[in-house]
């Protein structure tokens, strides 16, 4: 477990340092994510080493955003004031995004003659 944690934290660390150092627009851990994919592709044995830990972490993923979620109590006023606008924006946009993604997938798959899976 410790070697896997060391590697995961190092990917995040490199990501944080690189994005800050180079002024990249993406969050450090996202660069860490990309490093993980690239490293596992170059060295498939690494995936076997990391998998038990990533599975545990991802199995409890939702727990990790509870503290940030509780922070909403500091912004209840904002939600009360703009609740309808926020709710409409979130709901309409989510429905549109699902529809756009699915329709484009369907048409491009048909156009490239790709078989369904």
């Amino acid at each position: 477990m410790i070697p896997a944690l060391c590697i995961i934290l190092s990917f995040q660390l490199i990501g944080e340092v690189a994005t800050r150092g180079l002024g990249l627009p993406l969050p450090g851990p996202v660069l860490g994510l990309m490093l993980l994919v690239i490293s596992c592709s170059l060295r498939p044995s690494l995936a076997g080493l990391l998998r038990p830990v990533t599975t545990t972490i991802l199995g409890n993923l939702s727990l990790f955003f509870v503290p940030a979620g509780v922070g909403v109590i500091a912004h209840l006023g904002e939600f009360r004031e703009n609740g309808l606008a926020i709710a409409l924006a979130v709901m309409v946009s989510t429905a549109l995004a699902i529809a756009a993604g699915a329709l484009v997938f369907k048409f491009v798959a048909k156009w490239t003659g790709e078989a369904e899976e």
Partner: protein
Amino acid sequence: MTDPALIWSYLSREPLLWLTATLIAYWLGDTFFRRMNRQSWANPVLAAVVILALLLWITGTSYQTYFEGAQFVHFMLGPATVALGMPLYDNLRRLRRAALPLIAALLAGSLTAVLSVLAIAHAFGLSEVLLASLAPKSTTAPVAIGIAEGLGGEPTITAVLVLLTGVFGAIIATPLLNALRIRDWRARGFSLGVAAHGIGTARAFQVNETAGAFAGIGMGLNAVLTSIIAPLALHLFQ
């Protein structure tokens, strides 16, 4: 016996109390979620947030004090984001096989998610902080929080918006995709993962294994793409 006020003053200074409370609240929320047969509306995070918010309100505890204990859980968002690379790696072969439709659908879904939410919020005259907090709402929470921080949004607002997006997407996906007559499980799962991240992915897995795998791919790819397009899109509305 020691004065209870002294014990309370100890507890309110140390991280132990609120760290424990966070885990118990999530445990309760997760138990409720399982009892409700994993219905999307019974989301464990939403339940845990409500329980903790009430607890803080009753005890008159500030969010700052709470966060001193909860920060250890919050910290795990970073490693969790890195760990999201693993399912992406595991699905690389499927990804390559459907590369063109996936790339096109990713661009369409991701751009629609970011641009439409900003356009609607802008039309309602919402503040710039709210716009920046809304922009990454379709991205998985750890990444969305990172993006919102970078854009000058309010990460705690983003966390709640991400949850609402996921819950709403999971509820609406099946009727919406049926109405659009999309039958390809890859298209159904992928678009849900792009638009409604982990909660959508969990929902996709309930319906169909292939849909679930493609939802996971969509969530992972969208995390990367949104961190690039959200700052550019926000620029258009400022």
